[in-house]
């Protein structure tokens, strides 16, 4: 009989104290568990329109035999295309298996045990998770008026600070920094630390004073920009995102990356998605209309809500968010509970197609009147 491995000795202390992430079950399992025949997924800010038409066609035409061939290890063609679009060098880009992987690459590249990263307390949780599992302290600064607190973040900096993460627009509040604010922040950081601006929802923003972060990289070589194909471009299922930065910084990050982590189909889909301007337009129109509908419905219900930029709205409930989730699931509507984002009793709903939002509004009315 084999004995159990001596995990006490094998596992690093910082991993012992960490708790594993448990993703939700597949849709068919959830439908079975909650007894619903249809499920509207309004929990992950996915694009209800799916991938852009050009990306779909390219993926449909993908020769299956190519599945036996390794992908481009560094997403060469995609990087060249991004370089053309943004007027930068291909080596200033790096693709990852979703933006989550890019977060891990950056932390691995710049941080060691005893270092710290700085971000907000109520934002995308992966910065905090990855740093904690890497034995790196996550210093969390409370939001101010639902937005990142630049001064608060600067105050937390010390000699062991390596990376500052700004989610712009912020998930889940939708707040955002304009170019002046981002420049001021970068000026105060003074090039001494890496500043990551996560622009997962950038393509949903239609404000002229939203920062042109790619252009700012020229002036601020410590700036790293994250983008994803999971939100606007509807490719969440095949996992692809990228980061951009100065040649020197990206060269360091590249040393920590996992080669071949981005599959060929994802590279093909992303490459062609960038060509489809009409898709972006249609998605933005859907989100605008959806937000108008939700504003009206939520006002009728008298529920406070917060939304800025991005395809999501956060709603404060008079009951527990997790109870609302369970009740809404029995009605075939899946939302995101916000307690894990440190917004207890709030839910976040993806601004989706009209049928889904009507189902959401109806389920919410029933749940609150129950």
């Amino acid at each position, binding site marked *: 009989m084999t004995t159990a491995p001596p995990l006490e000795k094998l596992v690093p202390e910082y991993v012992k104290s960490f708790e594993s992430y448990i993703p939700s079950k597949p849709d068919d399992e959830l439908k079975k568990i909650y007894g619903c025949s249809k499920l509207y997924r309004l929990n992950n800010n996915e694009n209800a329109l799916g991938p852009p038409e050009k990306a779909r066609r390219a993926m449909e035409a993908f020769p299956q035999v190519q599945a036996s061939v390794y992908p481009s290890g560094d997403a060469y063609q995609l990087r060249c295309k991004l370089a053309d679009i943004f007027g930068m060098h291909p080596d200033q880009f790096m693709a990852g298996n979703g933006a989550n992987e890019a977060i891990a690459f950056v932390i691995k590249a710049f941080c060691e045990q005893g270092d710290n990263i700085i971000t907000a307390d109520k934002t995308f949780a992966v910065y905090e998770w990855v740093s904690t599992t890497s034995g790196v302290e996550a210093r969390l600064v409370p939001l101010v008026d639902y937005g990142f607190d630049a001064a608060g973040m600067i105050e937390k900096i010390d000699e062991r600070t390596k990376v500052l993460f700004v989610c712009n627009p912020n998930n889940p509040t939708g707040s955002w920094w304009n170019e002046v604010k981002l420049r001021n922040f970068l000026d105060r950081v003074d090039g001494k630390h890496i500043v990551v601006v996560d622009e997962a929802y950038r393509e949903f923003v239609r404000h002229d004073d939203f920062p042109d972060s790619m252009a700012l990289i020229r002036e601020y070589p410590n700036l790293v920009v994250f983008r994803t194909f999971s939100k606007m471009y509807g490719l969440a299922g095949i996992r692809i995102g990228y980061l951009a930065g100065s040649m020197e910084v990206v060269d360091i990050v590249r040393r920590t990356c996992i080669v071949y982590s981005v599959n060929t189909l994802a590279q093909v889909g992303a490459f062609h998605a960038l060509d489809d301007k009409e898709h972006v337009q249609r998605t933005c129109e859907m989100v605008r209309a959806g937000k108008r509908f939700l504003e009206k419905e939520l006002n009728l219900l008298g529920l406070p809500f917060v939304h800025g930029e991005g395809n999501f709205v956060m709603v404060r409930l008079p009951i*527990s968010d997790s*109870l609302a989730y369970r009740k809404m699931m029995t009605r075939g509507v899946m939302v995101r*509970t916000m307690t894990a984002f440190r917004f207890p009793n709030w839910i976040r709903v993806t601004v989706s197609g009209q049928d889904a939002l009507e189902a959401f509004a109806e389920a919410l009315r029933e749940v609150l009147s129950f």
Partner: protein
Amino acid sequence: MSVEAHEAFLPLVTAFVEKAANCFGLGTDDALRLTLASEEVFMHLCRVVMPSGGPLQIVCSNGVYYTKAVFLLQTDAFDMRAFNLTVTVSAEDEADLDTMGLVIASRSVDHFLLNHEQGRHLRLTLIKEKTYPMPVEGLPTAVGPLAKTTLRPPMPEEIKFICQLALSYYDTRMLSDILLYPGKLVDMIKAGEYRSLAAVGSAGEIGGAIFWHRLGENTDECIGPYVFNQDPASNIAEDLLDGCLGAVGRTRVVGIVNVRPTPEFSRRHFELLGTLDDYAPDGSCAPAEAWFRLLHEDAGTFAWVHPDLEAFIRREYARLFLPRQVRIDQPSGETLPRHSVLSADFNRLQGRATLRPMWPGADSEENIERHVRLMESEKMLNIHFILDLGQAWQAVFVPGLLARGFEPRLVLPYAGKADLVVFQLRGKFS
């Protein structure tokens, strides 16, 4: 320490446990009690369980407010009967003499735990806590209403002060046991077993506090929030609760319960699980509400349910919208160990006793009866039994519980391997 199960190694075993207990800060008397318990367990293992010898591991560890000695071995020949609080032994009976050592061991420590894992791995845990004094009588400095407070973990001296404040401003029956022993609470927080937040004014005044700790594998228990002489319109209680939820929200913990809520506890963001009858020595009875909320989306789980409990369980799951796969289970003639084991926790100050199954056995019904008689003789007014629906073997206790007058009162989601059911013995004052 790895050692052969042979009496010759007894001095080594006792020296190991005693030295460890001393190093970990247990007082002389407490260290000797743990040593005595370890000695008796080791001798029992050598003589009765492993007469042909065999490898044995003993692990001592420091829990700050307790020292733990764990015996790890492989066997399926271990009769646990002696670990029942109710067991009696006769000096005339040779079989009883075999169990005498275990009886002494179980009475010498504060807690014992038994786990029999797959592959015949037996884990027997003895826990001896340090002895702590109750707080000194006397009203502490009064706290005035605070215009503004911020949340932060309290310092050790502030934790003790919070205990004094809680005793001043709250009825003892409403207080959690942990607040009755300030030094122990400081150590439990130092050990990482409990966490806390205090609402602190600009000059360091304490306006309120909240505590929480892990209860089972997936659930935390929240204690409080306690608010000391503050404006009822202040947000202190809500802030404390939000701070607690924010702290546990990004952990693996699935849910949080509060089984002794204060009046300031914000019920609207929690769900009522049910109530227990809380009998006081003066004969009065007040309902004790249990509240909970999940922290994440509920992905569902299963529950092993005895048919006699099925109606209650299904009704509660439907009322609480808990997605559960109910698996009906009951003994079907399979061979059970002769003797079941129950653990018993007493809170004599508040007249509460809680039983939990440790081991199944053919005598489960009689064992429940013996324990109830003992608790009634010790004037326990509130007797509870907690059953884990994630452990199918515990279903064997259900008929005995119902027959003895226990009622299922509430379900604690995810508080054990799966959900726990809390039974209460119908009180004499009801």
